[in-house]
């Protein structure tokens, strides 16, 4: 059978040879309603080089795209910019098939690849700043630890002014279009922000350092070629500025109210709080964990200044839907938030105290006294909820006016 997949030319010497995963919906707990791509790139230098591979089940698609340009056996070098299995899953098989002269990864990458696949001793470590000659052009490596894993690095191809940025500047969005400039800006911003919130957010302090490090090289980069989603070849400043904004985590006059409910009591409280916030001029997102996925919550928290959480007490605990989102949010480390807790209960009422413990562990500054009610809130209790909302609103307005 003739191969149905072909490569896409990115620049003078670089071809996209990745795979499109139209059906993936769960990416280690992050829901990806629009699928993803695993981007691999072929550098047609004297020494033909493959940059990253794809998730294991997509190896044939990648090989087929490579074959549209060159016999895979001609590949001399393979670079692994990131060890995570969406980019390395088929690396051992590809090494067996292609028999490259050498395979390179960062110092941490060689360790990780050996721990993932074992017996990968032929992988050579490259240091931060090291270069590799491909004959008629050269690659330069830059460590970018924790974007997304300790092994992560960028690879720069000066000849084409192209930066292979692995997870950075990526998004989980399956499209037939290969370039960002072929897609609507609003969708790009949404997908890139969701990806940042769900993958990159905890490493924001490192992101700011990495951006400075890239700027300090003086590289005149014209193309960002990430490992997921479309390739950036126009207006790179747009995505850089978004990364700076998201990484700096400056509080805004926006509050996210997240709750779960059993018999609608906690829901009534959530709605009273939200109305008071909105009346005071705060942007509000009200999210019920009975209906919402955790990925959407962290997307909303990414550009918020307050996180207000509510749960009834179920068997002396918070509702499991709230435990889910609190665990997820704590790990993603949103910064500079203020917050408060609320909830209803039938007899014991531990949930509100438990939620406050979660908030403190997340370094959310508790800016209003919690509201807790036995069974259904009456108008007095809802008035207290409105007070909670007003107090958070006043504090957010004060904080954002100063910054």
């Amino acid at each position, binding site marked *: 059978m003739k191969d149905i997949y072909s490569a896409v030319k990115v620049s003078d010497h670089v071809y996209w040879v990745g795979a499109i995963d139209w059906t993936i919906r769960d990416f280690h707990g992050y829901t990806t309603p629009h699928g993803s791509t695993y981007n691999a790139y072929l550098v047609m230098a004297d020494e033909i080089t493959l940059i990253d591979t794809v998730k294991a089940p997509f190896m044939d698609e990648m090989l087929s795209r490579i074959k549209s340009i060159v016999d895979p056996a001609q590949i001399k070098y393979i670079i692994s910019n990131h060890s995570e299995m969406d980019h390395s899953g088929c690396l051992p098989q590809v090494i067996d098939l292609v028999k490259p002269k050498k395979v390179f990864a960062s110092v941490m990458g060689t360790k990780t690849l050996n721990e993932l696949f074992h017996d990968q001793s032929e992988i050579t470590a490259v240091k931060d700043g090291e270069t590799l000659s491909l004959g008629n052009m050269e690659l330069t490596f830059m*460590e970018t*630890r*924790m974007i997304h894993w*300790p092994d992560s690095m960028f690879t720069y191809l000066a000849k084409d002014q192209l930066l292979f940025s692995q997870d950075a500047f990526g998004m989980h969005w399956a499209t037939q279009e290969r370039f960002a400039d072929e897609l609507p800006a609003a969708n790009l911003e949404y997908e890139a922000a969701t990806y940042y919130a769900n993958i990159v957010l*905890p*490493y924001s*302090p*490192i992101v700011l*350092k990495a951006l400075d490090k890239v700027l300090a090289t003086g590289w005149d980069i014209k193309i960002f070629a990430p490992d997921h989603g479309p390739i950036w070849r126009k207006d790179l400043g747009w995505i850089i500025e978004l990364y700076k904004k998201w990484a700096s985590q400056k509080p805004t006059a926006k509050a996210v109210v997240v709750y779960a409910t059993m018999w609608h009591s906690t829901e009534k409280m959530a709605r009273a709080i939200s109305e008071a916030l909105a009346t005071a001029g705060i942007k509000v997102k009200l999210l019920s964990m009975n209906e919402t996925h955790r990925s959407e919550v962290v997307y909303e928290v990414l550009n918020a200044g307050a996180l207000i959480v509510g749960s009834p007490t179920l068997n002396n605990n918070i509702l499991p839907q709230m435990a889910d989102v609190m665990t997820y949010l704590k790990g993603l480390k949103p910064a500079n938030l203020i917050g408060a807790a609320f909830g209803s209960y039938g007899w014991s009422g531990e949930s509100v105290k438990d939620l406050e413990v979660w908030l403190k562990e997340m370094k959310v500054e508790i800016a209003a006294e919690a509201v807790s009610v036995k069974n259904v809130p009456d108008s007095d209790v809802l008035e207290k909820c409105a007070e909670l909302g007003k107090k958070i609103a006043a504090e957010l307005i004060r904080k954002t006016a100063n910054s």
Partner: protein
Amino acid sequence: MKKYVCGVCGYVYDPAKGDSDNGVAKGTDFKDLPADWCCPICGADKSEFSPE
């Protein structure tokens, strides 16, 4: 001597163990680490660390 934890990746600096990969001897207090020392896992600055 206190242990310090990296706020970015969760690595714990244990003075009793030091950080041999980066030439830090056993028994070195966190405060005595050089200013340019960074987390051996994620590369975060000293300022990202807090007492465990």
